[in-house]
C-alpha cells in the first residue's frame, strides 16, 4: 500500500491531480503555483492522464472554464495563487452559487500591492465569503491528502460545493518533503465516478444555468447554499474516516492538536503550525502546559468543536498570516473569539499578525508568544488585543 517519495508541495499537488485524473483542468501559471501547472502539463503531454487541459489566457477564464466544464458534467480542477485568485473572485462566487464541485489548489501568496511573491494567507482569506469550502494544509503530505479528500467532499450529493485546498507558497510549494503516495487505483476507487445530474451535455433534458434571479427567489437560493455548507462538516468527517481506513492518516475538522492538559494554546494555520508544534514538544518536555490547535477547515468554521477543544484552557494566542484592514483582528482571530463568546469560562484571547509578504517566523518568536500567554493567564489581562510578530516598529 502506497510508496514513499520526496516531493515539493507543488509536485505533490500535481501528483494528486494525476491520480485524480480530472476530465478538465483549466489553469494559468502564477508563482508559486507554476510548478504544479508545468508538471501536470507534462502528464498531459505524455498522455498519462485523460485530462483535457485548457491553457487559458487568464485566471478569470480558468475559473470560467471550470464552471463550464463542471456544469457539463466533468470533474474540473485548477490551481492558482494571490492575484490569480483575486482575478477569479467574481467567478468563484458563481461556481459556489451554481453548486459546482470545482477543486482548486491555492498556493498561498501575498496579494498585491505592492507586489510580493512570498507567502501569506491574504489571497485565500480574501475569498473566505465566496461560498467555497476551505481546507488549510500544513505540509506537502497534507496538501496531497486534502486534495484527494476534497474531490469526495465537493461531489457529495448534499454538499455539491467547490473546495479550495491551500498550502503555503515557497515554504511548502518549493520545499522537498517525505510524502506517502497512495496507489493510483486506490485513489481512483476512493474518489469514484463523478455524475452531475444536471449536465449541459445531456441534450435530451436541457437545463438552464445562471438565470436572472430577482428578490423573489435569490434569497431562498442563498439560504440553500448556506444549508449546503452547514451540512458539509459531517461529510468532511465521514470522508476523513474513510481516508484513514485507506491511508492510515486521519483528518478531522481541526488539524492534529496538542491540547491534552494544555493551559496556554496557540492557534495557527498552514506551515507555521509545524513550527509551533516543534516548540510545543520542546516546552512540554520541560513540563510546561502548552498546546497547539491547528486550523484545517476554515470554511465552514467548526466553531463548536473549537470552543469545546479550548475548554479549560487559560489563554489563547491566535496567529493570523493576513490582515482584515480595519477589523478587530485577523480573520482567524475574529472567528475564534466569536466562537468562545458563549463559553461560561472563556480563556483570554490575543491575536498576533505575522509573516506578511513571506516574513519569516522563528522558534524564538513562538516561545515569546507562550511567555506572553503565561503572563496573560496570570494577570488575566490582555493589554494589547492585536500584536505583530517579527515586525520592525
Amino acid at each position, binding site marked *: 500500500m502506497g510508496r514513499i517519495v520526496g516531493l515539493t508541495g507543488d509536485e505533490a499537488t500535481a501528483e494528486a491531480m494525476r491520480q485524480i485524473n480530472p476530465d478538465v483542468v483549466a489553469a494559468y501559471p502564477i508563482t508559486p503555483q507554476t510548478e504544479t501547472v508545468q508538471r501536470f502539463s507534462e502528464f498531459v503531454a505524455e498522455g498519462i492522464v485523460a485530462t*483535457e487541459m*485548457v491553457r*487559458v489566457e487568464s485566471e478569470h*477564464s480558468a475559473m*470560467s472554464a471550470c464552471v*463550464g466544464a463542471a456544469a457539463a458534467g466533468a470533474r474540473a480542477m485548477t490551481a492558482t495563487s494571490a492575484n490569480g485568485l483575486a482575478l477569479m473572485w467574481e*467567478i468563484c462566487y458563481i461556481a459556489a452559487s451554481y453548486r459546482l464541485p470545482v477543486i482548486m489548489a491555492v498556493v498561498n501568496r501575498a496579494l498585491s500591492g505592492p507586489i510580493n511573491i512570498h507567502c501569506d494567507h491574504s489571497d485565500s482569506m480574501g475569498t473566505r465569503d465566496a461560498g467555497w469550502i476551505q481546507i488549510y494544509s500544513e505540509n506537502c503530505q497534507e496538501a496531497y491528502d486534502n486534495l484527494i479528500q476534497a474531490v469526495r467532499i465537493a461531489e457529495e450529493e448534499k454538499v455539491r460545493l467547490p473546495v479550495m485546498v491551500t498550502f503555503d507558497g515557497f515554504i511548502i510549494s518549493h520545499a522537498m518533503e517525505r510524502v506517502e503516495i497512495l496507489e493510483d487505483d486506490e485513489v481512483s476507487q476512493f474518489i469514484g465516478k463523478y455524475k452531475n445530474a444536471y449536465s449541459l*451535455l445531456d*441534450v435530451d433534458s436541457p437545463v*438552464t444555468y445562471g438565470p436572472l434571479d430577482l428578490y423573489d427567489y435569490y434569497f431562498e437560493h442563498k439560504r440553500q447554499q448556506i444549508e449546503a455548507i452547514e451540512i458539509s462538516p459531517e461529510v468532511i468527517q465521514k470522508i476523513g474516516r474513510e481516508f484513514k481506513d485507506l491511508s492510515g492518516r486521519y483528518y478531522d475538522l481541526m488539524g492534529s492538536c496538542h491540547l491534552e492538559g494544555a493551559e496556554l494554546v496557540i492557534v495557527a494555520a498552514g506551515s507555521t503550525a509545524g513550527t509551533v508544534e516543534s516548540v510545543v514538544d520542546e516546552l512540554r518536555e520541560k513540563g510546561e502546559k502548552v498546546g497547539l490547535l491547528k486550523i484545517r477547515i476554515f470554511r465552514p468554521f467548526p466553531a463548536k468543536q473549537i470552543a469545546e477543544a479550548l475548554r479549560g484552557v487559560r489563554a489563547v494566542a491566535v496567529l493570523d498570516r493576513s490582515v482584515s484592514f480595519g477589523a478587530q483582528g485577523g480573520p482567524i482571530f475574529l472567528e475564534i473569539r466569536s466562537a468562545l463568546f458563549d463559553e461560561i469560562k472563556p480563556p483570554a484571547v490575543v491575536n498576533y499578525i505575522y509573516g506578511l509578504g513571506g516574513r519569516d517566523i522563528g522558534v524564538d518568536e513562538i516561545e515569546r508568544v507562550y511567555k506572553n500567554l503565561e503572563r496573560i493567564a496570570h494577570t488575566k489581562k490582555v493589554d494589547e488585543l492585536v500584536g505583530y510578530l517579527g515586525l520592525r516598529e
Partner: protein
Amino acid sequence: MPSLKVLSRKKELLTGGHRLCAGCGASIIVRQVLMAAEDPVVMSSATGCLEVATTIYPFTAWRIPWIHCAFENSASTLSGVEAAYRSLKRQGKIDRTIKFIAFGGDGGTYDIGLQALSGVLERGHNLLYICYDNQAYMNCLSTSSLIMTEDGVKRITEVKEGDEVYAFDQRTYQLVLKKCSGVFDNGIKDVYELTTLHHSIKATANHPFLVLKRNGRGKKNNFVWQTISEMKTGDEIVVLKNLDEGESFKFDFNKVKKGDYKVNRSKNFLIDNKYFEIEKVRDIKLVGPEPTLDLRVEGEHNFIADGIVVHNTGIQRSSATPEGAATTTSPVGKAIPEGKQRPRKDLTRIAAAHDSPYVAQANPAYYNDLIKKVRKALSTEGPTFINILSPCPRGWRHDPSLSIQIAKLAVSTGVWPLYEVEKGQYRVTYRPKKRHPLREWLESQGRFRHLLRPENKGIMERLEKQVEEKEKSLLALAGEETSA
C-alpha cells in the same frame, strides 16, 4: 440548403414569452441560428438583454442546454463546456455529436469580453462565437404612469409616436411642447415608487429624474439628472405645480413668458415659476416587477410623468457604437456636435486576424446568407466567429416594426458589409448593385438625427468617406474590383 419555409417548421428552441423588446434583433438572430443548426446545440450567453430577458427565474425560454456565467466570459465558460465534451468523448463516456455556440452582445464581446474571446480563438476550441451587435449598452417607466401631453394627461400606454408631450426646458425652466419620437416596451422590470409631498411615480432603478443640486452660499445652484438608484430621501426634484392627478386638463401654452421665474438661493429654487416647483423626495421603495415603458422625446429628452420631470433612459456607448451616434454617454452638444467621436472597432477583422478557420459578418435581414454562414461555421473544425448586426429599436430609436428594413439599409449603404473569411481568404457574400447614400441609413434612426442638420454636413461627409474607405479595403482583401 432547405428553404426558410422548410426550416421554420423546426421546433422553436427559443420559445415565445421572453421579454426582449418588440422588434429586437437578438431574438430574430437566435431563431435563425438555431434553425440553421443541424445537431443539438449547447449555448452560453453573456450578461445582457438576451440573457436577462429570456431567463427570469423560475422561467426559461430555452429548450436547449444553456448557461450564463458572467458578462465578460461567455467565450471562456463555453470553452470549458467544450473541453468537457472533448474529454468525455475521448474517454468514451459520451457519443453524441453536439455543437457549441457562445452568444454575447457588443459590450460583452467588443469590450469587456474581448480577452476571453481572443483566448478561445487562439486555443482552437471547437465552438462558434456569435456577437449580436446592437452597437451600444442597452438597458424605463411603469405602464401606470400618467404623461402630460398636448391633449391632457394620458396613460403612458396610450401615448403614441408623434404625440406632443410636455417637457421641461432646461434653459428657460419653462414648459414646452415636444414631439414624442418613440414609445418603448422595456419588459417586466423591478419598479420603485418615489413619493414627494404632492406626487408619486413608479419607475425603474435606472430612470433619471431632474434633481436640484445646491452648491452652497454665493454659488449658482443647478439641476442634474440622477437615477433612482443614485437618489435618497430628502433630495429635491423638479415637479409640476398643482397637478390634479388623473384629471384631464389643458395648459395655456401662450401664457408662458421668458423670465417669469426667480432663483432664490437659499429656499425654493423655482420660486415664482408658474409651472414647476421643487419638492423633497419623501420615500423611495421597491414595489416589485411590473411591465415598463419608456418614451423618447425630441430635443429636450425629458417629459413629465406623474407630475415629475423625468428623462429617457439607457443606451451607453460601447466600442461598437458607430461614429456620429448619439448615446447617453456620447450625447450631442455644442462642443461635440457629432455624438460619438471615434469610429467603431472592427471586431470581425480582429477575429479574422486570429487566423480562425472561419469568420463572417451577417445580418438577420439576409437570412439565407446568415443561415448558410452559421452552417458553414458549425461544420468547420476549430473556433469560428460571426458578427451579426442586431437592430435595437430602443437604442437606435426607430419603430419596432422597421427593424428588418433598417438592417437591410445597413447593407445597402455599405455600413455593414456581408462577407466571410475562410482560412484567411476574404469573400464578399452579398454586394448591393449600387451603394446607397449613407444618409438613408442615418435618416432611419433617431440616434443619428442630429447629423442631418445642415451645420453637420461636414460630419456626414466624413462618415460617408469612411464607409467608402472601408469598402475599398474590404474589396481589396477579397480581390474584387471597387464599383465605379
